[in-house]
Structure formats: structure tokens, C-alpha cells
């Protein structure tokens, strides 16, 4: 087995989350917003989901919403690598990494995940595992931070570091691109794969308030190659200044963009819509479109011929 290039420091990811979860007063507003939207999307699907897996948990906030909406009548399992994330919440709990899921094939009808998969190194591998643990005609509905998330912060930090140190390190993790995500779903062998982006724009008094919020969310730096130690104060202040200059609204508050990638796909099953078998058509495309065959084939129609006279 070839060793996967590692991008994230798992220990740092966990440490950041444990620290964030320690503040029980903090309301993870972005998570709640994403969870709301996820449940709303699920509401559009007419199918019961008796067995549900919540992949990545914040004290079961998503599972709580889901249960109210209907799914999970038979079984709800919350999975998180961090014990503190599981100390409250509905259903049964298992401590595990999303990249090494300890569930048998076809154990669930629905897998949901909110803001838990942007730190995994092997997203394609996770999708394959999810496909494996889904029952036929089971659904995965994943919302992850991706796309252009936090591009303002990335820009400001990079500019500040260039100004002060003459070089810049990667501070904000790279995110999954929406086109890549769609391709991954397809490669994982999921039926009816859909990937789309929801942008949530949040305003803060200043960039330092944004950084504080990110820490509260458990999203401090976790890149393996990140610069160790705290930000230098001058760097931080310069970045905040650049942020304020470039990304402030008229009222002086700064904005931060969070792109939420919604990925969904079904475990293949015979009852799903399928493309028709090749050669099974009964009507010529030309007839259906009401144009001469030659037009479709790129040849000009013969002079004087009636375009309607092409059926058969």
C-alpha cells in the first residue's frame, strides 16, 4: 500500500476540537446553520431512513435536528474521533476516525455529516467507505467547508507575511474544489451524484474577532507543515489591518466567506433512475427534434426537402 501524502496533523485537529468543545457556552452558529440547511434538503426526499450515521458530531446537534425531522427511527449512531464531542446527544456513540470507519457493510440507510470532513487527508477513501456501509438505495448527504472559504483571511495573512517577512507560509488549509468533489462522488461509484455550493457570508467587528471565532469552532491551524508557535503579534496586527482595508463593508465590519460544499450520492440500487440501454431507443432523435437527419449528422439537408418528412 502506498503511503498517502499527509496534509493534516491529526493530533492538532483533535487538540483544537477538544479545546473548542471545552467551552460549553459557545454556540457553533455555522454548524447550526449548515445542519439546518442539510435537514431542509433531506426534507425534500420522500423516503424513510431508519438507520442514520452522524459522521463527525458536535454533541449531536445535527442528529438532534434530524431526529425531529423523522430519520433515525431505528438507529442513530454518532461518530467522532474526540470523546468530548460525544458526551451529550441522541443515539449511540462510537469514537472513530472518518478515515477508518468501524462499521459492517450496509449498516446504514443515511449518512449525514456537517463540517467534519475538511480535515481528512483521503476524502476519496472516506467516500468509498461510506458507500460500503450504506445499504442499497442508501443516501449520503455531506456538507463540508470547501471552495473559496476564508479567501479573505488567506489573502490578508499572505500579504501581511510578505510585507513583514518577505515570504509566506500556508496558514489556511487548502479546500476541496466543487468540481473535484463532483468527480470524487462519481469515482466512488455513487448513483445520482450531486455537488453544489452554498456561500454563507458572516460579518465580524474585525479580523481578530474572526480568528477568535475560528478558534472557538475548533478550526485553528492543523496543517502538518504549518509554522509552529503562535502568530507574531506584528504579523497578526498587519493582517488584521489589511483585512480591514480590503474586506470591510460600508459600516466598517469585515466579512468572511464560508463556502459549504453539499455532496450527495446514493448507493446504487435497481430501483433508481438508470440511463437507457444503448440501442434501445424506438424513435430517431431527428424525428423527436423535428429536424432532418442530415442536420444532426452535420450534412446540409437536400434542397426542397420537407424537414417534417424524416420520421422513421
Amino acid at each position, binding site marked *: 500500500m502506498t503511503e498517502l501524502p499527509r496534509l493534516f496533523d491529526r493530533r492538532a485537529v483533535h487538540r483544537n476540537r477538544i479545546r473548542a468543545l471545552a467551552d460549553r457556552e459557545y454556540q457553533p452558529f455555522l454548524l447550526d446553520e449548515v445542519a439546518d440547511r442539510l435537514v431542509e434538503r433531506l426534507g425534500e426526499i420522500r423516503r424513510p431512513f431508519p438507520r442514520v450515521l452522524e459522521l463527525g458530531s458536535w454533541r449531536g446537534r445535527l442528529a438532534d435536528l434530524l431526529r425531529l425531522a423523522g430519520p433515525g427511527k431505528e*438507529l442513530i449512531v454518532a461518530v467522532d474521533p474526540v470523546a468530548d464531542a460525544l458526551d451529550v446527544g441522541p443515539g449511540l*456513540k462510537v*469514537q472513530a476516525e472518518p478515515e*477508518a*470507519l*468501524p462499521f459492517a457493510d450496509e449498516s446504514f440507510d443515511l449518512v449525514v455529516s456537517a463540517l467534519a470532513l475538511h480535515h481528512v487527508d483521503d476524502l476519496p477513501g472516506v467516500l468509498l467507505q461510506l458507500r460500503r456501509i450504506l445499504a442499497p438505495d442508501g443516501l449520503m448527504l455531506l456538507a463540508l467547508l470547501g471552495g473559496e472559504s476564508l479567501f479573505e483571511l488567506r489573502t490578508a495573512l499572505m500579504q501581511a507575511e510578505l510585507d513583514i517577512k518577505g515570504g509566506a507560509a500556508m496558514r489556511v488549509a487548502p479546500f476541496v474544489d466543487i468540481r473535484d468533489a463532483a468527480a470524487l462522488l462519481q469515482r466512488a461509484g455513487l448513483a445520482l451524484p450531486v455537488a453544489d455550493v452554498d456561500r454563507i457570508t458572516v460579518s465580524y467587528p474585525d479580523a481578530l474577532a474572526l480568528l477568535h471565532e475560528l478558534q472557538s469552532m475548533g478550526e485553528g491551524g492543523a496543517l502538518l507543515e504549518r509554522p509552529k508557535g503562535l502568530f507574531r503579534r506584528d504579523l497578526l496586527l498587519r493582517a488584521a489591518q489589511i483585512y480591514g482595508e480590503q474586506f470591510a463593508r460600508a459600516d466598517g465590519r469585515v466579512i468572511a466567506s464560508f463556502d459549504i460544499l453539499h455532496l450527495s450520492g446514493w448507493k446504487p440500487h435497481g430501483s433508481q433512475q438508470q440511463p437507457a440501454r444503448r440501442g434501445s431507443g424506438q424513435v430517431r432523435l431527428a424525428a423527436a427534434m423535428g429536424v432532418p437527419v442530415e442536420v444532426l449528422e452535420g450534412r446540409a439537408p437536400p434542397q426542397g426537402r420537407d424537414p417534417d418528412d424524416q420520421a422513421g
Partner: protein
Amino acid sequence: MPVAPVPPPQPAAAPVDPQLLAILVCPLTKSPLRYDRTAGELISDKAGLAFPIRDGIPIMLVDEARRIEDDPHPPVPPGLRP
């Protein structure tokens, strides 16, 4: 003659829910697990790992698992490190 004090019995580990037991497999090998109720461990014979259970929650992390047939807390082999 005074007898050496008997260590207090370990509090019985909270059992794992049967619904969970039915679907749990080894996170590494995806092979079935043995449930050792007295030790409060889920054992993967194939991976040679025993996963602990705390408050009824299975800890299916390789980092936290005990290597079987060795001393209780050996380092995790490099190939199994996350």
C-alpha cells in the same frame, strides 16, 4: 495475621449496546470483533488489537487500542500509525 488488602473490584464496564455490537467491525481490517465483556474490550484478532470501551462507548481508534499478546501498552507499530 492480617491479610493483604484485596484491591477493590473494577467497576463493571458499561456494556456496549447490542445494536452497535451487531454492526461494529475492526476499523483497520473490517473483520468481525470479539466482545470481551469482563475486560470491556472489543478484540480484532486479525489486527491483533483490543479496542477499549469507556462508558459504553467503543473507542475504535488505533492509537488507543492495546496490542494483543504483548505488554499492555506497547507503541503502535509504524504501519498502523494514523
